[in-house]
Every structure is written in structure tokens, then in C-alpha cells.
């Protein structure tokens, strides 16, 4: 059994009772002061916020505090070069150097990212505060920044979990995470996916690829039980998304096979009243995602949302009502047939996301000056290359896992262009209706690859 007290708490826990999240993006000022800050953070000495571990003991903390270090951050702290050399290439190069693999091109290219992400080499440490209210966030931030010689605050990003776990496009999120071998299953949801080996999320443990181990940076105290995080600021064009649903609903309304998708008279089953247009919008939304907006998986309930259907206990083995190109199926094909047979279940990620920006108001649709809104996402896995990047470049974009979607990008988060994008809506008869012309709904506005060190590693870095 893994010692949870050695892990940072945000790796295996979602902190669901702490809806307010703030990211402090920090630059090391003086190496010695920054090291002292890290040493203090392990136990919460001298007012520095205490790092929340995976073992809370008897007392649930009021606020949680976790950190991630970039490669530049490890260098700024004076990590020995022999250790630095052992970190994987993608982490060393950083997220901006991997832009083409991640679809961060054109308007999403790192050159167009706003401050502080336009100067990636200055981003050394990203600290995350999780709290029940903004006052607590302010209080912890103040304590974290007391010593001006340790870190300079470059900028912050802040998000808030909407009630009911809904996110900006109106889907329920935070439904499920991988369960891990040797870790108590806090979700206790039935799940047809096998438990993931611990090496999926922590360095130094067996991975899903038999016989393969990721390199653990030495000394062992630094690398063991650490993991990597792709932190992403993902802007969501909710108005554009809703507008596209309207456009697609009109298209299906007059499409000769539209009746097969939604038999006349079945409109109310979708839960949006008698309007055929409103029902078709929801059908499109559900197919693009692979879940109805209430979280019902299409794999279990293809015709309408079903509050009684399991949200987690499903698979894509054999015939499934979930489109091959749907967002959740692309990112995690579960046990379904894929081209890369050995990759089933090997690219899984722990996802921790929180929306930022105000919720979209459908009563005031398509206003020109919409405020920026989106998702502050963390995609955590022991190998950025074998998990996050592999998923992003071959599955999310390109669609290499299934010849029926190859050449198309993820309909929700892919790098789409209305001139070339397409998505096939499956019909019960076995045919499809091809939806064309959707733009990019999600664009990248910043991010960084960080290393999430264990508590022992933070102690080690503090003692350098």
C-alpha cells in the first residue's frame, strides 16, 4: 500500500469541498530564500502554507496548498545537473516547445499567449490554493508571498467550481477518475475499466505497459512518488458552441435522415420540451461529447438522458451508441477496439479542472463582448510523453485510433477549422450523418509542464 503522506494531496484527491481555486505563478528571486520557503512548506513553519499531503489524518484541512515546479524552476533552485539530466525531454523542453504536438498552433501558438505565459522561462513554480471562499484564498496567498526574497508573483489565475459540477459548455464534469491499484477507492463507483497500475500516476511504480518503467530522476528522494502535470489555460467559446448547436439542429431538421436520429413524437424524451429544434440541439451536444449534458453516457443510453443510468460503469466493447469521434471516447477509448492495441488504458490521466470566468447567460445569447471564460485544467500522469502528449497528438487531434475518424480532430477541444472539420453522427441503421463546418471551441491561453514532487522531494529541494 502506498504511503499517502508522501504524496501531494491533489494527485489522488479532487478536494471537492473546496470550490475556490487560485493558481499563483511564481518566479524564484533568491535561490537560498526559495529553498528555505520549500523546507518550511513541508511542515508549515514560519507562516509558509503547509503542503497538503494525500493523508489528512483525523483533521480535514480548511484550505489545501500544493505546488508544481517547472524545469526552469528546478534549475533556479540549483538542482544538481546530474539530476536535471534524468528528467524526460518533454518536461525539459517545456510545453511551449511541444506546441505542434498539442495543437497549440495558429492563434493558439505560445507566441500569442498572454502574460505570464509569454515568458515561459520565468515561470518556476505554480502554487495552487484550494479553499471554501475567496477570503481564505487571499489569506493563504498572503502567507505564501510573505518573503519577497523567495518568490516574485508573476500573475494569478482563479477559478470556481459551479454548483452541480457543471462546466462552461453545460456538461456535468468531475464524474470519474482512474482508480489505482494499492490505493483505497474513495469514489466507490462501479467502473468497467480495470484499476490502473500506480505507475500510471506516480514515478517509481509499475506502469500499464508490461515491463516498462519510466525513468525516476535521482536521487530517489527527488524522483520517487513524484509525477508530472500539464497545466492548461483553455478558453471556451460558449457563445460559439451554442451557436453551432443551433446551426447543426437546423441542418438536421431538414436532413432526410434526421427522422432516424430523432423519430417524430420523441422530442419530449430529450427533456427540453416539445420543440424539435431544442431536442436536436441536445442530441448534437450529447454526441459531440459522448455524454448527455447531465452526464449520462451515450454508451448506456443512446436515445435520451437517463438519471438512473450509471455514469461510470460502461465500455465501448462491441457495438456502442457512443460515436467513435466523441470527446470522451477519443480521450479514453476504455476497452474498445483501437488501432494501437497495446494502448488501451495506458494513456489514462488524472484530470483536475476548474472553470474560470463567469457562467454564460443563455438569456443574452451571442453578445459581442463576452468576457473570457474557460477551464483551468490539470492533466496528471507519470509520463507526459506517453500519456498527455500521446493522447493529445494521436487521439484528440488526428484520430489515429480508429480509421473511421482518422483525419478529424476532437469536435469539442480539437484544433478545428470550419473549412475542414467533420464529425459523424451514428444512426441506429448503421449509417451516419456527417456534421461539417464547426470552428474551434477551445483555445489555449497558457500553460506549463510541471513536476509535482513528493513531500520527501520538497524536503530534499529545501535542503540543497
Amino acid at each position, binding site marked *: 500500500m502506498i504511503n499517502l503522506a508522501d504524496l501531494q494531496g491533489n494527485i489522488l484527491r479532487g478536494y471537492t469541498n473546496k470550490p475556490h481555486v487560485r493558481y499563483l505563478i511564481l518566479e524564484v528571486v533568491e535561490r537560498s530564500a526559495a529553498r528555505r520557503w520549500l523546507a518550511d512548506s513541508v511542515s508549515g513553519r514560519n507562516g509558509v502554507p503547509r503542503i497538503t499531503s494525500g493523508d489528512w489524518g483525523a483533521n480535514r484541512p480548511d484550505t489545501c496548498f500544493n505546488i508544481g515546479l517547472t524545469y526552469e524552476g528546478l534549475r533556479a533552485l540549483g538542482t544538481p545537473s546530474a539530476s536535471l539530466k534524468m528528467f524526460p525531454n518533454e518536461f525539459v523542453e517545456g510545453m511551449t516547445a511541444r506546441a505542434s504536438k498539442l495543437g497549440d498552433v495558429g492563434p493558439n501558438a505560445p507566441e500569442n499567449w498572454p502574460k505570464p505565459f509569454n515568458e515561459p522561462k520565468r515561470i518556476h513554480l505554480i502554487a495552487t490554493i484550494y479553499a471554501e471562499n475567496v477570503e481564505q484564498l487571499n489569506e493563504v496567498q498572503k502567507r505564501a508571498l510573505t518573503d519577497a526574497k523567495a518568490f516574485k508573483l508573476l500573475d494569478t489565475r482563479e477559478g470556481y467550481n459551479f454548483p452541480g459540477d457543471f462546466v462552461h459548455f453545460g456538461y456535468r464534469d468531475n464524474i470519474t477518475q482512474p482508480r489505482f491499484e494499492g490505493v483505497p477507492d474513495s469514489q466507490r463507483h462501479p467502473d468497467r475499466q480495470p484499476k490502473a497500475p500506480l505507475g500510471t500516476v506516480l514515478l517509481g511504480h509499475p506502469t500499464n505497459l508490461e*515491463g516498462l518503467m*519510466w*525513468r525516476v530522476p535521482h536521487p530517489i528522494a527527488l524522483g520517487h512518488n513524484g509525477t508530472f502535470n500539464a497545466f492548461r489555460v483553455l478558453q471556451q467559446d460558449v457563445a460559439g458552441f451554442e451557436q453551432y448547436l443551433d446551426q447543426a439542429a437546423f441542418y438536421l431538421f431538414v436532413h432526410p435522415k434526421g427522422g432516424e436520429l430523432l423519430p417524430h413524437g420523441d422530442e419530449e424524451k430529450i427533456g427540453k420540451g416539445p420543440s424539435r429544434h431544442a431536442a436536436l440541439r441536445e442530441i448534437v451536444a450529447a454526441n459531440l461529447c459522448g455524454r448527455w449534458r447531465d452526464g449520462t453516457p451515450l454508451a448506456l443510453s443512446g436515445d435520451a438522458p437517463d438519471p438512473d443510468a450509471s455514469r461510470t460503469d460502461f465500455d465501448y466493447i462491441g457495438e456502442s451508441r457512443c460515436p467513435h469521434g466523441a470527446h470522451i471516447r477519443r480521450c479514453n477509448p476504455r476497452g474498445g477496439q483501437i488501432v*494501437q*492495441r497495446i494502448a488501451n488504458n495506458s494513456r489514462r490521466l488524472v484530470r483536475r479542472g476548474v472553470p474560470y470566468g463567469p457562467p454564460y447567460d443563455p438569456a443574452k445569447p451571442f453578445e459581442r463582448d463576452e468576457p473570457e471564460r474557460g477551464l483551468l485544467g490539470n492533466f496528471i500522469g507519470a509520463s507526459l510523453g506517453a500519456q498527455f502528449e*500521446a493522447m493529445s*497528438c494521436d487521439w484528440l487531434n488526428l484520430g489515429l485510433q480508429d*480509421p473511421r475518424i482518422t483525419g478529424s480532430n476532437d469536435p469539442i477541444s*480539437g484544433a478545428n477549422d470550419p473549412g*475542414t472539420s467533420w464529425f459523424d453522427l451514428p444512426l441506429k441503421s448503421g449509417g451516419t450523418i456527417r456534421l461539417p463546418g464547426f470552428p474551434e471551441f477551445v483555445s489555449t491561453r497558457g500553460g506549463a509542464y510541471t513536476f509535482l514532487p513528493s513531500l520527501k522531494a520538497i524536503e530534499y529541494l529545501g535542503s540543497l
Partner: protein
Amino acid sequence: MPNGGSWLDQYVNELPKKPWFKRAGAWILVPFWAWRTPVKPLPGGARPSIQPGENLQSMMNLIMPLKKENKSPIGRAKAALAIAENKDQIFAGLDNVGTVHFARFVIVNDNICMFSVYDGDFSNYIRDFIATIGSVFNAVVELVEGGDDVIPCEENVEAFIQWIHEHDLYQVPDTATDFLRDQEALNGDRAVSPVNDDLTLLPRKMVLQLRANANVSLGSGYRAYPGFSVAQVRKQLGLGW
């Protein structure tokens, strides 16, 4: 080459054809240029397209020099056997990895070469192969210079992928100005330099680059049809995927 007006222009234009000038160029001029203007070797491998759908049927061209003790008919025979003995495993690997169209092994002048055509991301392709038939890679790479540092590949996944990447030939772009762009990107230059860039005149920059990258792939492979994935071809032909 442009037509020179004066006798001097004509004389200079004829120079590259003269044997003494060719020798002087190879032994004196190019080494002098290289000393004056150091050029870094360009990294190898396919250049990912920013249009994801175009990242199909990419080429890998590995040239791996055999170890000193294997630079002999016996060493070459060992390399030939390493492939022949693992033939079944290679077929099984191709089947399970699912993204490789062709893989060819060739021995040229004490180099064992592996040329392949694959879909999608290079690192994923090599990693999936390690996970499937890592032992075949080990059997080949142990005969090669520097190979001992990265085998068994199953325990050195990241280093092995990087090593393979470093042995993959630079692919000279079809449009020669793209080659200058690669060179300048490597040097961190943002603007394309206007000096010596007349690409009809065997430019100095290209000569020096081919000195730094002695083996290169000319172009990224030419196809008679647009790129399709392995699975698209298999599905279309009714072979199952």
C-alpha cells in the same frame, strides 16, 4: 547558373567544373568556411504538420553504425541474423502497434539501417514498439555504436527514444527556403538572413549543412497517393484492423 557577360564572369562560372578547383573546394575552402561559420547538425525525423490530419505516412530513416568489432563480414552476418531470427516477432509487433506501414532493414557499408513508414507521432511509434517487441530492438542495437548505453530499451524508454531520434536522418525539405528556416530556427534566429541565399548557386549554407549532416533524406518521401493510415488501408481492403 546565370550567364556571365565578361570573360571573368565566365571563368568564375566555369570554376566548379575544374578538377583543381573541386579539390581545393573540398580540402581547403569548405573546411575554412566551416571553421569560420560553425553549423550545428539539424535534428532528424519527420516534420509534424500543423494540420494534424496530414501527419500520416511519415518516414523514419535510421542509420546506425556497427560497433568497431562488428565492422566486418562476421559483424554484418550477426546483424543479418538478428533480424532473421526475430522475423516472427517483427510481424507480430507490426500487427499490435498498428501504425506502421512498412519496416525495412538494410546493411550499407557497416551501417545497419532501418527505414520505416509510420502514422502519427514518432515517440508514440517507438514507445509502442518498445512495449511490444523491445527485445528485437535490443538484439539490433547491441551491435551498434553507443547502443549499450540505451539497452535494455524497456528500462531506458526515454533515453532509447531520444537515441533513435538522434539517429534518424534530417529530412531536407523539398522547398529549399524551408531548409534555411530550419537552420535559422535551430540557431534561434527569427528573420531569414538574405546573405548567400541564392538557391540556384549551390549556397554556402547548404554545403556547410551537408557537412554537419553528412547523411540526409532528400525530401520526406514521395507518394503516388494522399496519406492514409494503416488502419484506413486495411479497413478499405477488408483486412480487418
